[in-house]
């Protein structure tokens, strides 16, 4: 059976603040309360891609998590809408474009999807996440825990 909630984070653990998405996902998974066991699927990848449209099927709610150079610190939350997005972002698909792919393929609107963008600064290979980024992560985690369990985490 497909768990009703999906948390999908992407990034590279070895590229500085790019690790924020996977680190956030790992912390959420580690501290998942017993009441939510079996209710949440956690998926991590290097980049968002077309096949992730298939991972949205059968969900009640979806949370996307990524590091961002352009959002305000410490994090921003956006309710996502499907959009015909040119996604000039190389091999990576943008979240609105992914939702549009889902809609076109499935013939129905995607489940409610939210983007948690965590502010990062530096993405150098071999560098750990910076202290400012890790502070942003802690703030974002508090919000994400409430998203997972609105009735009390």
């Amino acid at each position, binding site marked *: 059976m497909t768990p009703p909630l999906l948390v999908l984070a992407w*990034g*590279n*653990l*070895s*590229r500085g*603040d*790019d690790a924020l998405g996977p680190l956030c996902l790992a912390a959420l998974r580690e501290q998942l309360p017993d009441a939510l066991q079996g209710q949440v699927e956690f*998926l*991590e*990848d*290097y*980049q968002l*891609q*077309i*096949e992730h*449209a*298939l991972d949205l099927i059968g969900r009640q709610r979806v949370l996307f998590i*990524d*590091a*961002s*150079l*352009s*959002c305000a610190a410490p994090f921003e939350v956006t309710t996502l809408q499907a*959009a*015909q*997005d*040119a*996604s*000039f*972002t*190389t*091999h*990576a*698909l*943008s979240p*609105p*474009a992914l939702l*549009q*792919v889902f809609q*076109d*393929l499935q013939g129905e609107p995607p489940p409610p999807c939210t983007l948690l*963008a965590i502010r*990062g600064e530096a*993405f*150098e*290979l*071999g560098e750990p996440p910076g202290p400012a980024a890790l502070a942003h992560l802690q703030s974002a985690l508090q919000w994400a825990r409430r998203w997972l369990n609105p009735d009390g985490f």
Partner: protein
Amino acid sequence: MTFPLETAAHPENLRRVAIDPVSRVEGHGKVTLLLDADNHIEQVRLHIVEFRGFEKFIEGRPYWEVPVMVQRLCGICPVSHHLAASKAFDRIIGATPVSASANAVRRLMHYGQILQSHALHFFHLSSPDLLFGFDSEVAKRNIVGVAQAHPEIAKKGILLRKFGQEIIRITAGKRIHGTGAVPGGINKLVTLEERNNLQRELPQMLEWAQDAVAIAKQLHAQNPALYNSFGSFRSNLMSLVRPDGAMDLYDGVLRVRDADGRILFDQIDDQRYLELIEEEVRPWSYMKFPYLRSLGAQLGWYRVGPLARVQNCDFIPSERAETERQAFVAWGQGEPVHATLAYHWARMIEMLHAVEVVAELLADPALLSGDLLTSGVRQRHGVGMIEAPRGTLIHDYEVGDDDLVTRCNLIVSTTHNNQAMNEAVRSVARDYLDGQELTEGLLNHIEVAIRAYDPCLSCATHALGQMPLEVTLLAADGAVLDHVQKSTQGGVTRAT
């Protein structure tokens, strides 16, 4: 070393156009055009941000960590780095050959990677240009446009890619950060249930892969003038082949053909690649320019990847793909096919071959039982070479007595194609842009030529809001004449 249009005689008198970065290729690329007052092209360069810090990232680590760590070099082809590193460390620990089971599981992983990567490139990155035209409405020229206009094609692409990803998950142990291959072999076999699940999907995947070849072939047949000439230039071709001349994307010996199709080098042991290849540094690019040592930089540059592999081998050892290879070769009418857009056709022939190889491997009992690991006499030095989706990938390591990596050298597929991509861009600039007013559609022609190589530029660095496309026109005195920007949402704004 000089190449036509690489360096203008008097750049101070020319205006500059920068396409920065190139979209729908991995990482950051930038094209600069220097134009004279009549918009004639005087200089064209493709600059690519090199894979900075690879050596620093790897040196000093215990060798057994490296096959896992190198996957973080690239979010697009982590499996290729995983396997190339594992093959190099097989040499270090004397595990040559690895067991039959290790060979089968690794090959399955690799051909799954080829399948998913080629499916993504053709159906997602290239089909918008190929199906709608290079000058089509910019908002339509993406996968969403394809999904709306051709939902059946978009769906096939996604499901083919998903099938390849599932093969990787099963053989590598996880969707990402896989640990399936280790120095000396593998750490797990495939279970009967996993094997049966994959086998159930094979007939459909085979049909769709065959359909994809037909689409690519049809595109050439419908518009041979465009497909034969766009970005076309003559070059040497290099790849691994099996010792008997068959296509083999996992292992083999190096072979080089010249632009006329004659074999220049053959049966070159991958451990001796440095006797064949040298790399040149040019001051205007971070990325090196490899060439054949005996021919020199001017004549010795070459192409790698699907176009090279399909023509470098003597035959493809699977029935359907071999039939398609023969049709491809016949298209050249006795000459090698050098057209840049033929990369797409060759890539789909390889994807079909990958599905056929997967079918053979799934029937191999060695997948399900047998030895995981072997070892032998320890060596200090080992080279792992593989035909990654984009071309030949080389991992070269030295390991000390303390098991720590003391030196490494990586030559990735995109680096091999550096000169070739520059030539493709110059060809397109000469044929389409010279003397013309620049438009978004014309600039996309340049991107189409680069995308045909499926370059993987900076490996997995990304963040939201990081990659708009900018085009800037500069006068000879440096004043901004025109500035066009594409946002990540696809909007195009112009400020003059």
